[in-house]
């Protein structure tokens, strides 16, 4: 079934009786060519592109819970390609271009909204650093625009411009950045993958990897052994747990990040706004809720919930930059487990075990990466060589000293 305006009108006239399930619920087969572990955004995108772009058949995605229950359904939905370093920027720009064509490509309304992202600047040093980043973006074919305080005042009069400690001096804007409806990304990729014959198997937890003589033969699951020629791990915050089955220690710590949504309001915020002096980012969903977040809680955890000091810190940052937020009531908040890497950048690579591949370390910026991560991981799984925009994301870069440390924080995952 294809979605179209015609179909919507037809269903409206026929009492909406013609809509069916969007994907099958198949039993696992004994063997697949390629198994993807993890039915988050990245795993589903990988399966979709493997089948659609790289001509692979006989693929399964194994998900321990239900698809979209992980970080793909927990994030604050921001997409952008405003990175500085050469290892990162071409990859994220590739991703933003894929977002721009995604809904037509998989025939699903993911509510991709290029409402723009604005990173506020509060000091002269920060202005120089942001202009440099903007130049790096432009050199890599992305868009970037430096706005003065007056220009920002015209667009966002509600911001706290004349704060004594953190006055707003300007900002770096990327007009093509924005937000996407996160659940619809999981559903759109799942539906697209399913239509190309991919088996999406939910309630199927991977509990072990079968490795014989240095070759990965398949996975042990809560529904029995499933064989495969190639196994790709794609489990975000659970990466270390999966790779421990192959005795691989990763340059990753798992941390919790919280997200917050206010009650629904009339439109008040034009795009995504980030505070440059604390960690705070906010946008407004189409339903009207202010969607915002801040820092990690900061300690290792696998609990999908955070603690109150971070809630207080995030709300203080919100009040500092946008005092009107104090009038809104907080409706919901939740946490997701992040795979924080040692340089703040991701990994898409083979392992030293034949047939075992790894995708992870997305930290809290992996939602925007979903299309490119899926595409590049599919490229690697299908061709056994990295896609040209993902060549820097090697697993051994820490040993070789080729870190991609955007923030210059060093091997301290909770600071990236």
């Amino acid at each position, binding site marked *: 079934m294809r979605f179209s305006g015609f179909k919507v009108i037809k269903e409206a006239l026929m009492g909406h009786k013609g809509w069916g399930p969007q994907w099958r619920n198949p039993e696992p087969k004994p063997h697949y060519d390629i198994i993807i572990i993890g039915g988050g955004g990245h795993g589903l995108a990988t399966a979709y592109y493997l089948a659609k772009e790289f001509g692979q058949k006989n693929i399964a995605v194994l998900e321990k819970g239900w698809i979209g229950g992980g970080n793909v359904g927990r994030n604050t939905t921001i997409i952008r390609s405003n990175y500085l370093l050469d290892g990162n920027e071409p990859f994220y720009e590739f991703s933003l271009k894929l977002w721009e064509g995604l809904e037509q490509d998989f025939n699903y309304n993911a509510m991709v909204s290029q409402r723009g992202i604005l990173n506020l600047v509060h000091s002269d040093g920060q202005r120089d650093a942001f202009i440099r980043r903007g130049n790096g973006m432009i050199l890599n074919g992305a868009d970037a625009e430096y706005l003065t305080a007056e220009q920002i005042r015209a667009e966002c009069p509600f911001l706290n411009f004349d704060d004594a400690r953190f006055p707003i001096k300007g900002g770096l804007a990327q007009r093509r950045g924005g937000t996407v409806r996160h659940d619809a990304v999981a559903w759109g990729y799942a539906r697209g993958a399913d239509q190309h014959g991919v088996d999406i198997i939910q309630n199927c937890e991977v509990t072990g990897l079968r490795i014989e003589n240095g070759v990965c033969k398949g996975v042990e699951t809560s529904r029995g052994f499933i064989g495969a020629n190639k196994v790709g791990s794609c489990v975000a915050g659970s990466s*270390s*747990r999966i790779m*421990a089955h192959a005795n691989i*220690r*990763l*340059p*990753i*710590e*798992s941390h919790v990040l919280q997200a917050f949504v206010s009650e629904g309001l009339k439109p008040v915020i034009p795009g995504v706004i980030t505070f440059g002096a604390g960690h705070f980012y906010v946008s407004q969903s189409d339903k009207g809720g202010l969607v915002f977040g801040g820092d990690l809680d*900061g*300690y*290792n*955890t*696998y*609990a999908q919930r955070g*603690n109150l*000091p971070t809630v207080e810190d995030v709300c203080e940052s919100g009040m500092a930059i946008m005092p009107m937020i104090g009038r809104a009531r907080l409706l919901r908040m939740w946490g997701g487990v992040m795979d924080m890497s*040692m340089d703040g950048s991701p990994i898409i690579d083979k392992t030293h075990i034949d047939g075992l591949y790894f995708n992870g370390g997305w930290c809290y910026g992996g939602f925007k990466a979903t299309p490119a991560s899926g595409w590049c991981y599919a490229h690697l799984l299908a061709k056994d060589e990295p896609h040209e925009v993902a060549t820097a994301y090697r697993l051994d870069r*820490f*040993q070789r000293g080729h870190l991609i440390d955007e923030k210059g924080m060093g*091997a*301290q*995952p*909770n600071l990236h």
Partner: protein
Amino acid sequence: MIINHPILGPRDAAEFTYLGDASLLNRPDWQAKDAAEQFYEYLYLRDNVAGVHRELWYHEQGDRSWLLVTRNTLTHEISKVELASDVARAGGNSK
């Protein structure tokens, strides 16, 4: 979370900054033949366990001591708090 400081008693975790896995106490020997390999593992690789985790917290807004906290990463339950210096000395370190 409340951290039961061995000297100061129960303190709010917000008074502390977090460093990470307590294996960071065991700095490799820089003169070892495979020192480069050992330092790579020491600096970058982590067990990242789901369960009981031994980790270092610094009492920045308190007495500035380093604590070794044993905490469950699935439940946030803290089962043991020691002075990191005591643990390091017991392990043969000079300081």
